């Protein structure tokens, strides 16, 4: 229902063709620019830093390459080319998803990542889903459960969750549900049950941050005039929560989710280790131990990409939650004058 109003309102505005699409296109371009700049920055920093992989690996006496072999490899990798040419080559490889070969296993980096990425993505998104469900459930409870039935105790949950690290939660879950209750076999970490418990371990600390922001905002919105006025129209608590309070309170939650992406990623690496799953975490672990630079670079690039994408999504969601955000042009103060032109349209029909 609501989107159709929005479209209709948009159509009535002839001089601005769908401002949301213009806004989205601008954000998308910005995101691409950020990724390219990040890549350029990393490349420049790496080429300025002393030492290089050629010296580190090829000239290592243990590997026993001859000078001719070394020169051949350098030429094959294009490392004798000028820096701008190298940048262009590496950027075009990067854009086509070609991250070169792993130094440890000599397999393409892209293949290595593609093997483990789904597992991590499943864990991370399941963890985020758990975090959202738990956070919204707690927040819903604080608004609707009367204090005498434990509504107040719910407010203490986020700080409790926040103070327990996710690996502790993971170990407790493995012990209780894996060993004691036998719900899942600990040696089969990719089974559905094991994945679910890993997601719970990952999601709970993150849910605490979301819940805290959400509760504070719900409390704030519930004190606003419009909430009292809506109640005077006969709305009950549950409807007030669902129809009025949730949407304006969700805006800061979007920001928090965008900020916790790093935590979700970092947390999934730890959770993978605790539950013994293969994933980006185990790949990073092995590659770091072996100084496998191409793999590490690709993972860092991937993480940067995820960050940029999540923030892009957050930017695209804001205007859908709050129609007051100006999509095009600089933000402006609520102009008296704009108000006045609207007031001038106002005519008392019957008075």
């Amino acid at each position: 229902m609501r989107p159709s109003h929005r479209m209709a309102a948009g159509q009535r505005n002839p001089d601005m063709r769908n401002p949301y699409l213009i806004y989205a296109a601008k954000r998308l371009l910005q995101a691409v620019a950020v990724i390219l700049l990040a890549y350029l920055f990393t490349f420049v920093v790496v080429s300025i830093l002393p030492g290089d992989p050629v010296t580190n690996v090829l000239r290592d006496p243990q590997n026993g390459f001859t000078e001719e072999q070394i020169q051949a490899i350098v030429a094959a990798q294009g490392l004798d080319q000028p820096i701008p040419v190298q940048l262009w080559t590496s950027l075009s490889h990067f854009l086509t998803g070609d991250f070169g070969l792993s130094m440890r296993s000599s397999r393409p980096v892209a293949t290595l990542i593609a093997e483990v990425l789904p597992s991590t993505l499943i864990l991370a998104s399941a963890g985020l889903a758990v975090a959202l469900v738990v956070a919204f459930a707690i927040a819903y409870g604080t608004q609707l459960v009367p204090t005498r039935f434990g509504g107040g105790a719910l407010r203490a949950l986020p700080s409790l969750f926040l103070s327990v690290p996710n690996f502790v939660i993971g170990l407790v879950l493995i012990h209780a549900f894996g060993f004691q209750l036998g719900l899942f076999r600990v040696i089969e970490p990719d089974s559905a049950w094991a994945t679910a418990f890993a997601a719970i371990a990952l999601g709970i600390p993150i849910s605490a941050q979301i819940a805290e922001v959400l509760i504070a905002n719900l409390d704030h919105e519930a004190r606003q005039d419009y909430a009292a006025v809506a109640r005077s129209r006969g709305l009950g608590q549950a409807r007030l929560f669902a129809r009025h309070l949730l949407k304006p309170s969700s805006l800061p939650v979007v920001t928090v989710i965008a900020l916790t992406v790093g935590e979700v990623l970092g947390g999934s690496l730890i959770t993978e280790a605790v539950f013994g799953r293969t994933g980006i975490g185990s790949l990073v672990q092995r590659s770091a131990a072996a100084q496998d630079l191409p793999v590490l670079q690709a993972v860092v690039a991937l993480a940067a990409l995820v960050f940029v994408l999540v923030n892009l999504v957050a930017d695209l969601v804001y205007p859908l939650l709050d129609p007051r955000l100006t999509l095009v042009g600089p933000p402006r103060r609520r102009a008296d004058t704009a108000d006045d032109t609207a007031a001038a349209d106002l005519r008392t029909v019957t008075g």
Partner: protein
Amino acid sequence: MAPQDGLTMLSPRAGSAPGRSPHPLLSVDGLSVAYGRQEVVRGVGFAIGRAESLALIGESGSGKSTIARAVLRLLPSGGHATGRVAFDGQDVLGLPERRFRPLRGRAIGFVPQDPGNALNPVRTIGAQAEEAAALLDEPDRARRTRLILDTFAEVGLDDPRRVYESYPHQLSGGMLQRVLIGLAVLPRPALLVADEPTSALDVTVQKRILDLLSRLQQERGIGLLLITHDLAIAAERADALVVLKDGTIQEAGRTAAVFAAPASGYARRLHADVPSLHPDRYAGLRDAGLRRSQAGGGAPKIAVSAVSKTFTVDGRSLRAVDDVSFTVPAGTTHALVGESGSGKTTTIRLLLGLEQPDSGEIRVAGEPVTGRSHEALRAVRRQLQLVYQNPFTSLDPTWKVEALVREPLDRFGIGTRRERADRVRAVLADVGLGEHLLSRRPDALSGGQRQRVAIARSLVLKPDVIVLDEPTSALDVSVQAGIVEVLLSLQAELGLTYVFVSHDLALVRQFAHTVSVMHRGRIVEHGTVPDLFGSPQHAYTAALLDAIPSGAAGRAGAPHRRTRAAVGEALTA
């Protein structure tokens, strides 16, 4: 208590109509409201008959809004009401929420104070209107929407479809208040509680909204509980008045009786403080200032000539100030009058050098303000001070009064420590504040005290000109009276020149010597106060003057008020 008997007598329809409930529509008995230990309403009682209106009058803190909230059962958490509130004979205070909820909206409607905050900003007006429409026994969705659009048209909204599809921020305050009134009357309640429904609106909009409320109340036979701080509005719009102070009733009775001959000292004071009822209250002080100015030759202190300023908003250019000229003789008060968006704020920003005009020139004491560097303006600013509209936000809450008032002296490096402290004390005495307030922070001051501190701060540099930007619009009428008196006696004593920005013409009449009426960036009329108020030439000025609530039922209100008053007279006779 006597009031109840006096008021129930007022409901002839309830008593005479056969088949109607014998109970008054709303009767409140011994109502007390407490927040924790602190009792804010004590033993209040009144009654409203069907299709009757009653106004609760009082200053901020008198408990009038708390009573409204208690009747609506919308007290904030921590608030606890005792006593009896009976709607159509049924006690509602003791009802569980589940049994009271069916009465919400359907039987008791609510029009809130600040229309800007009373609708959910992230939902369309239509989505919120559907909630009110859901209270009607109308299963067909399309027909419900039709009813909403009809109601919007009835409350005077031009394009109901557009309003339905809009978000609250896309409408003006006046339109939002119409929407809220529409939503309140849509489920056809028997009682409407309106909590200061116009205090956030311009005068002309206020008049239209009050006319609308009166008309709906008449046509639909709604009982109205009107909460207001303005005695003139209450007298104009209500059959009965209840005057409150500190949570207790000071006086209650029929409007004509209370208004014409207030019995309690407090009601008399409220009456005396309404500017529109006493245009010459400060004539002595005001004319003393004028005489002093004329004796000094009356040379223009401020000369604004042909000033224009254009802003660009969303690619549209908007002429905020259009060829504005006026002069202010030294030692007099010039009022800039107009509604929001009329350009008065931009004009004073130009005068203070905060914006540069596109064309034209402004001179203060012969020195140009326009086209000067920041450094050069500093010298002018010493002569030119501003008192801001809202004393609740214009003072840094972490500073003490002493530092707040002293700061301008520090900034301009005037005098020794000792001299500055003496000057701060002297200037506080000038505005009527005692020395014991020096170490207080703004939180510990009342609104009137805060505005006095703001005035002291603007006076401390001994300026010649003070720009007063709606200095009393955030304050109660009785507090306003004190501030006006302080400002006028300072003018008479020190020969200050004031530029006074206001939308309240009644106050302007008490306070100013000359007036410019602004409308859409232009000055449409200017002149001396007696000339302009005696015979307004421009239609807009006449509309503004007509919008002043005078308290006289029938004079400023809609025609039907006259008949109602006549009916009231006939009843008492």
